């Protein structure tokens, strides 16, 4: 991965409250992660699925529109998903720490 990407990941994970970062490729495979193997694999499958579904319902509602960001807020943390043509960036943060 390029230095710029590494820099960005470092910057994000330096934010107070960030619990983890996972980058998935188009196939839903984690190419980078700050979480352990088990958690990474778990997130990879789950997030690929929800991102695809969200993207789909958005287009169904309006074919001219497209998903740009997804946030799953729960009691304990927030999962943020930023899709891109080739990748999915997933950041898990604890909003109370941020």
């Amino acid at each position, binding site marked *: 991965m390029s230095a710029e990407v590494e820099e960005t990941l470092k910057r994000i994970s330096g934010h107070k409250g960030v619990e983890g970062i996972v980058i998935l490729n188009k196939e839903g495979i984690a190419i980078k992660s700050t979480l352990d193997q088990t958690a990474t694999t*778990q997130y990879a499958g789950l997030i690929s699925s929800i991102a695809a579904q969200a993207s789909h319902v958005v287009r169904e509602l309006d074919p001219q*529109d497209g998903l*740009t960001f*997804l*946030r799953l807020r*729960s009691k304990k943390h927030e*999962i943020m998903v930023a899709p891109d043509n080739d990748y999915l960036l997933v950041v898990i943060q604890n909003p109370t720490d941020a």
Partner: protein
Amino acid sequence: MSNGKADMSAVKETADILERISQRDGTEGVVIVGDKGMVMHSTMEGSLKSAENWVQMTRTAKHVVREVDPTNDLSVLRIRTKKREILITPDDKHMLMVFQTTDRK
């Protein structure tokens, strides 16, 4: 003793809350969806006829949260698109969906 009066005031209170939310700057509409995807109340004329796919997607989101931690629960789902942001707040029987435009005054 009938609960008619209690129901009526609950319905009115709900309508008032939805009205207040929908008046907020940038709000395109507020929709309440039942658990099978039927639109129970909507301030947007006709654009969302069946929300079944939205209900299913929200179920998946709930599942994501629970899978990672069974003691955790999804509280809000925010979907941001090029044109709008949709905030989904699910509970046991319903789902509240608020559609907001991204360009607010």
